[in-house]
């Protein structure tokens, strides 16, 4: 069996702030193959950006491992680590901050091409840069090459950032809220461009967002991981997570989202939470981190024991005692029947096809 492109295993990231320890990410594991799409959705403070930085090799996890093609990246020799860093590129949220204001688009794109000796010389590099601009729909490229970031709109800047990420021929792009600072009317075309890159170049995406509508649209063929206070609480194929959320947090989130449709949004069944306050990362609740807000809270279980992310069928996993209890109670037989790997493979092929 070939090794997955990128595998995070039991990754935790703790930050120290004075005397307090912030548990930004706790025990997160996931796996990405070439061409895969995984959306990390969560609210501010859920650890999604931190995870993105870990996946891109910009941050060393406190514990756990990050494997690139089967090898632990933090135990790689320097040159192999460099090729890992080239293979995973990150596109940041703010295109106003992530581009050097005194460099033209041409300079921005040519520099990595020459530095990594991807282009033979300047002429070749400029040609390649022009082709990359076409790839991200900045046409005609000669019109954009001599421009400075301030001469471009927000959407165009973000496209330049994507083209820059593509210079080194990445296998995985970590897009951290890459579309959220762009105006509504042009956000979708940026998503289209990213989707096309995935289809044409086979690039894998770790798409980080707080916007479930964008996640749904970008990762319909992929998976969604819902993060809450640094933990993955639910993971599964996008249509089933959005259509039939299992974790109480995912359910609350989906019920809370206003829809761009007056009748639909006003008729939506809202779930009230037990508390509006999000616990602090410095002082996480015992047991399940969601228990102080959860409607299904069971005293003595949820506030004591931390639920693990357990599979509920071939493709979905949920970290919730209640969901697990229900499944082991009523569906014990059925889930055992679903367990054999042949069943899972069938599901997978259905999903891909």
């Amino acid at each position: 069996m070939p090794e997955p492109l990128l595998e995070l295993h039991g990754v935790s990231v703790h930050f120290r702030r004075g005397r307090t320890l912030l548990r930004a990410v706790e025990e997160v594991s996931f796996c990405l193959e070439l061409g895969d799409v995984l959306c990390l959705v969560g609210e501010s403070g859920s650890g999604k950006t931190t995870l993105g930085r870990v996946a891109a090799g910009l941050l060393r996890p406190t514990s756990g491992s990050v494997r690139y093609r089967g090898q632990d990246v933090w135990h790689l020799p320097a040159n192999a680590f460099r090729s890992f860093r080239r293979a995973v590129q990150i596109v940041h949220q703010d295109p106003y901050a992530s581009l050097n204001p005194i460099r033209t688009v041409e300079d921005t794109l040519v520099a990595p091409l020459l530095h990594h000796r991807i282009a033979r010389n300047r002429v070749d590099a400029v040609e390649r840069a022009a082709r990359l601009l076409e790839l991200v729909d900045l046409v005609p490229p000669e019109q954009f090459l001599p421009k400075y970031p301030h001469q471009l709109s927000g959407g165009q800047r973000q496209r330049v950032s994507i083209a820059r990420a593509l210079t080194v021929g990445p296998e995985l792009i970590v897009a951290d809220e890459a579309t959220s600072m762009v105006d509504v009317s042009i956000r979708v075309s940026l998503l289209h461009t990213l989707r096309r890159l995935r289809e044409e170049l086979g690039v894998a995406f770790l798409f980080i967002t707080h916007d479930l509508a964008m996640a749904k649209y970008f990762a319909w063929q992929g998976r969604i991981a819902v993060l809450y206070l640094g933990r993955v609480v639910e993971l599964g194929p996008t249509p089933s997570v959005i259509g039939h959320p299992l974790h109480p947090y995912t359910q609350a989130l989906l019920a809370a989202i206003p829809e761009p449709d007056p009748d639909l949004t006003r008729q939506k069944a809202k779930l009230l939470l037990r508390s509006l306050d999000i616990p602090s990362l410095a002082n996480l609740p015992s047991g399940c981190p969601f228990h102080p807000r959860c409607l299904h809270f069971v005293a003595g279980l949820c506030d004591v024991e931390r639920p693990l992310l357990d599979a509920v069928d071939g493709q979905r996993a949920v970290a919730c005692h209640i969901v697990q209890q229900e499944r082991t109670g009523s569906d014990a037989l059925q889930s055992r029947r679903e367990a054999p790997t042949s069943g899972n493979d069938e599901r997978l092929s259905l999903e891909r096809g």
Partner: protein
Amino acid sequence: MRRSLNEPVLSVRDLVIQYEGAGGVVQAVRGVHFDLAPDESLAVIGESGCGKTTLGLALMGLLPKSARIVAGQILYRTRDGRVTDVVRLSGRELRDFRWKECAMVFQGALNAFNPVLKIWDQVLDTAGAHGLHDRTRVREQCERLLRLVQLDPGRVLQSYPHELSGGMRQRVMIALSLLLEPRLVIYDEPTTALDILTQRAIIEVLRSLRQELGFAMVFISHDLPLAAELADRVATMYAGRIVELAPVRDLFYRPRHPYTRGLLRAVPPVSGPLTTVASIPGSPPSLAELPPGCSFAPRCELATDRCRSDDPPLCMVGADHWSACHYWSAVSLDRRTERLGGASHA
């Protein structure tokens, strides 16, 4: 029907606002015109740089010095039936008018508080500035409002702003804006930058406050779902103008301006099956260099030579439905059927 019985609390008449700077004249608001009924909620939606925040500031008489009201009137009908033009109010009169008649809640509530004063002291300052010196009464009113927004008054009033979370600060702001029982509250992006669950709480708070206290609201937002939640009527703004104004269901289900339709197509719903989405080509024009004719024409699939030379006025195209498009009758989006049709597939 209801609106014909009630005289509008606010009437904006052909308002034109410009910024004059080194780069030339920026036409931020170009002939905005609408009425607002006393218990009505109007959402002003548009993208960044469409002039919606400038409009909101003007309604409060809060424009920065670089802005100039070139033409138009902002008429308020006060409780005693007098009509005042905010454009003509002097400093002293404006201060009386703000909070009492009209309050505004800004985006980013942290900046709206004084960081070195406890919330209670800020409340007292505000109340004192408007002639309310009875501490017990202010306290009672304040506690009632804080409870309405689901906050614990005892805890909140004794806190400094930094001790409250973003969502709590925003709820405090919303509660305090109602302290002097204004007839109109303007909300500029009230839920932007808040978490989804907090956003939901604020939406519900605003809904119930309005039911309970009955005041008029203007929401300024780029967020279409928020308008779908809370507005009675929606105004779409583009390049400094209202290009469409209609009751919320008409605007969402039967838009009559290609820009509104474009926005609706660009924002997919979360629930339900995957629907088609499309963005609007191009990007919004700079308010300093507006194209001749209809400012949306360069991005519009319906545009003809007529649009490029002749700027369409806002015309009535249906019951209480206004659109500024020569070809409004060619604009259609049957979003509901699309959604229901899609649902039958699943």
